[in-house]
């Protein structure tokens, strides 16, 4: 029997993944990508967002916000020693839908809406309701991350 997550994200059926947290409404993928676990982050009124960054719900707006946090654009999702990477997903209309963060192991961690965190291969969530990966960014991995 398919799990709830495999029905929502068919790419998980053919890849190895693990659930790494209980389901919670307390934070979302953007917050989790930044290690924040007590609030939802989204560039809309009523949600937490990065200080001094305009609330623009676009890929360009997300890139600007992450650049403020010292991320820079990159071309590869391959693990690079000393760097932390994120992947920004978008739908067919180029609306941002999701953010994933690479772990030191090279695997990726995601907070799935109000569901759980999972560890997985980067391609496993592509072509779901999250759409496709449109931007990769990296920064020097913070100490302890």
């Amino acid at each position, binding site marked *: 029997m398919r799990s709830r*997550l495999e029905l*929502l*994200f068919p790419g998980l059926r053919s890849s190895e993944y693990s659930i790494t947290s209980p389901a919670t*409404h*307390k934070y*979302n*993928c*953007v*917050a989790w990508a930044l290690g924040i676990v*007590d*609030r*939802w*982050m*989204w560039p*809309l*009124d*009523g*949600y*937490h*967002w990065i200080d001094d960054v305009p609330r623009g*719900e676009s890929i360009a707006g997300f890139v600007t916000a992450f650049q403020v946090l010292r991320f820079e654009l990159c071309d590869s999702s391959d693990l690079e020693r000393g760097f932390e990477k994120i992947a920004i997903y978008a739908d067919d209309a180029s*609306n*941002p*839908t*999701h*953010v994933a963060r690479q772990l030191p192991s090279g695997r990726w961690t995601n*907070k*799935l*809406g*109000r*569901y759980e965190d999972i560890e997985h291969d980067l391609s496993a969530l592509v072509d779901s*309701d*999250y759409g496709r990966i449109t931007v990769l960014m990296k920064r020097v991995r913070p100490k302890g991350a």
Partner: protein
Amino acid sequence: MAVVNCDLQREFAAEVALWRRDTSHLSSVRAICSHPAYLRIIAMGVRALPYLLNEFIERPDHWHLALCTITGDNPVPKEDYGDLDAMANHWLEWGRERGLD
């Protein structure tokens, strides 16, 4: 004291269940809050306020936008934006002040 409207209460509960089923895996607040069931809840207007406030405090979720739209008010200070538990408490207090609890 709020008057209970059983039909509206059932309709509200059905829309909440549908909305939650379809959006719990989503990360985009815009996608979550533009789901048709969410918009139908907003369209219920002030009659849905007691149910909405109760739902928010029982199961904190993305009800802030709906409440702002229905009431034209916003009792949540910016420092609590995104903290759904804190936001629910602010709205609960807002409802209490207006006899909607």
